[in-house]
């Protein structure tokens, strides 16, 4: 076991610990109070690994099953995740056997942390990211199990602890908000999603926001991309992403 990678990764996951354990307890408790058996919420968290989808799916576990409907429900609800892989393609390229698991573990929070944070000098990159994902996943499972088994025994009023996840996104947003890509990307993401929320409401905002963000980023590429101008002049300024392969695209 690589303790250095674990030590480097753990502090970044503490906000997720607060948020996931709290929300996991809430989720486990809801499922049990609706009449589910103990194993159901735990197996859900183990195999679905998506808090938003699991909460949204609660009522559908207590009515006649509609598998086809739930398939499209799940795709629509988590469609934002299709954008998460793109920045991670290179970071996760050499993950080896664990790559499928790392892709499955790519929750909102894990994606935001791992796409923003670079491991410190001397720490194995892959192990650093594996620990972030594995720790986040374990918090969600532990929270769910606690909620299912003894959620109604929690002696403290924890309402509001999930704000740690909102705060995590805000802080990582500030960290990303530098350089042309960060400033333009962040502004597009925030403004266009807010616009979508205002125009079509919270249930339909995500697909519209994704289309607008993609269109904005593609149309604005000329201004956003830090390379200066010409079509074939990108190689000179793009050493970081092209350096490892022999031939650069374009």
């Amino acid at each position, binding site marked *: 076991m690589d303790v250095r990678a674990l030590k480097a990764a753990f502090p970044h996951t503490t906000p997720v610990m607060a948020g996931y354990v709290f929300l996991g307890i809430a989720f486990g408790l809801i499922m049990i109070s609706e009449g589910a058996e103990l194993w159901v919420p735990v197996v859900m968290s183990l195999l*679905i690994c998506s808090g938003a989808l699991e909460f949204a799916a609660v009522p559908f576990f207590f009515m006649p099953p509609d598998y086809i409907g739930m398939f499209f429900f799940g795709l629509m609800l988590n469609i934002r995740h299709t954008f998460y892989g793109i920045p991670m393609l290179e970071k996760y390229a050499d993950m080896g056997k664990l790559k499928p698991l790392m892709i499955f573990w790519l929750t909102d929070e894990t994606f935001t942390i791992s796409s923003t944070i670079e491991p410190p000098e001397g720490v194995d990159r892959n192990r650093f990211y594996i620990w972030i994902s594995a720790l986040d996943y374990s918090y969600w499972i532990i929270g769910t199990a606690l909620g299912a088994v003894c959620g109604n025994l929690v002696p403290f009023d924890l309402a*509001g602890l999930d704000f740690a996840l909102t705060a995590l996104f805000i802080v990582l*947003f500030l960290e990303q908000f530098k350089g042309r890509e960060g400033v333009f990307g962040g502004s597009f993401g*925030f403004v266009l999603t807010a616009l979508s929320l205002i125009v079509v409401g919270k249930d339909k905002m995500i697909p519209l926001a994704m289309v607008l963000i993609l269109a904005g980023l593609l149309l604005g590429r000329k201004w956003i991309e830090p390379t200066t101008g010409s079509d074939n002049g990108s190689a000179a300024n793009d050493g970081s*992403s092209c350096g490892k392969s022999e031939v650069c695209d374009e």
Partner: protein
Amino acid sequence: MSNIETLILIAVLSLTVIITRGLPFMVFSRKNELPHIVKYLGSVLPSAMTGLLIVYCFKDYNWHEMTEIVPAIIAAASVCGIHLWKKNMILSIFTGTLIYMVLLRIM
């Protein structure tokens, strides 16, 4: 629902997660062949999606209910202020969360 039906439903939802999270990795399976436009999107999408997620976090608040939205706005502003001041992620996040939890109870 029977146990079997419950398990199938979990499997269906699990499949949707695997599809949505796995799609880019299935489409662009080899590192060296990444088109330049995908690299560009990879550099701008993290901040864009974080911006999206912040709005997503605020979507369920009732904007007409002051006792709901004011603690969230004050706490979010505190997170920004503390972070720009101290540059310490953990401090900013947990102080902001504490402020939120306190305001939620006194308002």
